[in-house]
């Protein structure tokens, strides 16, 4: 069988493998780990730079990885991983690649016309794009089902966990959305993200909650919304719901406030998820779904939505969607 067999109960393995001393085994493992560390140093350095939150841990990691990646580059040891990453559609240091958009971003075909929005058919469906972070993905699955069930809406989804509008140095949502809009030519965009946004920015270095941070976050959200709304598209934005951790929830209030403000400035339909998921004004783990009590938030983190919670929020989005687009006969 394929599994590597474990040793027999009598200690020695069945096929007479050469026994190794603990010292030798430790040294081989240490050297192998070191070899991997040097050969992968450029990727690890990139990941530590863009993924790790600011702090002592990140600083320590970079203190170790900076000289190692220099060494790897000098010896050309980074090349195999670089080539592999490019072949895997990443940057050489393992970063994300984005869709290439021609300088003039005039759409190839029709983008949004009032006719399609008002009277979508199976032959000419309304094109909807769903975007979000991990909590947005909790909404995307049931929303995709509801939208598809109408028979007159085609849906594309794009989610990226651990991303948001604060650390655009890690994942560039602005560039990604520009490419998605060019490629998919959606009529409507529905977005939900913000769970990872209550942190300081790296480029430029701005402390979370400072005036400069607020201005930059508002600008980031505004830029995303202006791309979403361009060419006559409709855009809906779903707020991140109240969460169990009251301290963190207070931090999220700033994110919610700024997103709502940007949505208002860019005429994006803002859906307050708390109206559905926190009807009493505070976090609720259980809610009534279709006449039955159901667990709507994951107990392990008190943040994410269970399938029942996602379905409940999707219903609220569908109602807003139907109402705002004037699709009176929409059924799902």
């Amino acid at each position, binding site marked *: *069988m*394929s*599994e*590597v*067999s*474990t*040793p027999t*109960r009598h*200690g020695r*393995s069945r*096929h*007479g*493998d*050469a*026994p*190794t*001393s*603990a*010292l*030798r*085994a*430790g*040294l*081989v*493992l*240490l*050297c*192998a*780990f*070191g*070899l*991997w560390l040097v*050969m*992968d140093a450029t*990727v690890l350095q990139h990941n530590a730079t863009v993924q790790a939150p600011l702090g002592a841990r990140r600083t320590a990691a970079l203190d170790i990885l900076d000289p190692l990646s220099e060494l790897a580059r000098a010896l050309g040891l980074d090349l195999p*991983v670089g080539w*592999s990453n490019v072949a*895997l559609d990443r940057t050489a240091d393992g970063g*994300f690649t984005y869709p290439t958009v021609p300088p003039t971003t005039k759409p190839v075909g029709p983008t949004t016309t009032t006719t399609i929005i008002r009277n979508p058919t199976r032959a000419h469906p309304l094109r909807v794009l769903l975007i979000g972070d991990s909590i947005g993905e909790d909404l*995307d*699955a*049931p929303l*995709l*089902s509801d939208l*598809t*069930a109408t028979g007159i809406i085609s*849906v594309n989804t794009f989610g990226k*966990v*651990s991303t948001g509008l604060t650390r655009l140095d890690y994942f560039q949502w602005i560039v990604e959305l520009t490419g998605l809009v060019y490629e998919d030519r959606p009529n409507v965009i529905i977005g939900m993200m913000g769970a990872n946004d209550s942190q300081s920015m790296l480029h430029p270095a701005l402390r979370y909650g400072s005036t400069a941070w607020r201005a930059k976050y508002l600008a980031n959200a505004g830029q995303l919304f202006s791309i979403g709304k361009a060419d006559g598209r409709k855009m809906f934005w779903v707020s991140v719901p109240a969460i169990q951790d009251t301290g963190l929830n207070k931090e999220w209030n700033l994110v919610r406030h700024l997103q709502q403000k940007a949505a208002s400035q860019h005429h994006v339909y803002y859906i307050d998820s708390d109206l559905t998921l926190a009807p009493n004004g505070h976090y609720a*783990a*259980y809610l009534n779904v279709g006449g*039955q*009590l*159901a*667990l709507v*938030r994951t*107990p*392990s983190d008190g943040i994410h939505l*269970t*399938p029942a919670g996602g379905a409940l929020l999707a219903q609220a989005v569908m109602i807003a969607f139907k109402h705002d687009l004037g699709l009176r006969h929409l059924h799902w």
Partner: protein
Amino acid sequence: MLFYTFDFAIFFGVVYAGAWLLNRRVVAWKLWVLAASYYFYAYWDWRFCFLLAASTVISHLGATGISVAGTERVRRIWLVSSITGLLGLLGYFKYYSFFAVNVDNALRGIGLGNAVPLLTPTLPIAISFFTFMAVSYVVDVYRGQLKPATPIDLAVYLSFFPHLVAGPIVRGTELLPQIRRPRDAQSIDFSRASTLIMSGLFKKLVISSYMNNNIVTPVFGSPNAHSALEVLFAVWGYAVEIYCDFSGYTDIAIGIALLLGIKFPVNFDGPYTARSLQDFWRRWHITLSRWLRDYLYIPLGGNRGSTLLTARNIMLTMVLGGLWHGANWTFLAWGVLHGAGQVTGHLRRTYREHRGIALENDATFAKIRQRFLTFQYVSLGWLFFNASSMSNAYSMIGRLFSGWGQSSPLVTPLLVVTIGAVIAVQYVPRRLVDNAVAAFGRAAAPVQVVALGLGLLCTTTLMPAGVPSFIYYKF
């Protein structure tokens, strides 16, 4: 602390050095490993350590009480009370939400709403595994198969970090003797350990993640938006994902324990080569299967009674095995499906025995047919196992019949080849694998360094940016 993180690599490096330095000093070794294991567990949430300690105390009290009791009645009282305590902890953390929601809904129906407090206890990671080990320990002491361990031995046995989070479910008779004496520092099964760790990492980080991200999550999330072919491949893909995820985890756990000089029992043995459901359960999560057999199926009566009683015992064992995974109707359905399949197999064997017909048809085509059908049946079980709800499972099944003729962009050649390869590899004769491992063990140290370094590089390069957590962490 996940096995594939930097944090764990540093942690293990320190523990490894300390464990071998203290190897000859038995008590110091135990204290070191115990401290390391509690640190490992506290890395998720330090409060969970109290739960682990509580399970240890309950098991110790139970085992001690059983061993000093003068009469069978008192021994039995100790047994029942300690198992009740252990299962009570498990029940509260694992099943309370399910219980509360369903009782509340039932009571609302007759106008008695809000009768049950709606708490949301966080499920402590590993609780199912260490509870099962604690129960087996107490029962083994009761049966006279094991003498009560000292508190520190018991604490090390239950908390030993390689098996703590997701098994294998090691018995006291297997692990306790190994921690009571020094291990041979000159004779580590290094080639096997390192091969298990590397293969486990590759299975988990590359193959399982690939299946999850590219077919399983999108299709199970919204089956009605996908074609029948995509649904079919999502089900097969999940069969591959959960195998690579879980066997990958236990490969790493067994390998890590081997590096510390401790041997764990095997937990997987080419499960998708099984020719029947009974055969499948001899190859899949073997340590759970034997736990269910020895501590549930046999106490229920096993196959000692009539055919009907045996069928009842099989069904009960599989249903409870399903519910062990969590309080969800989908796990119940999974258990019922496996129970029904096994009962059918048992009835078939009984019928053939009575008629004097050969139990197995060993013709080549028959073997292929048996393996194919067993895999399809197991995959149907996985459909329920991974579905978020019964309606989600029905949507998946419905789509299998109604979604043909649509485009299937998620079914790529790479996906098909990967699924085929994972299943095909299970047919590779063990002798060939063992020979390769032995050859690696005989290689010079620099060759081993380069092979392991490049193997790790290959895994980290091919793995996606977002690696889902181990499936069995939530059980």
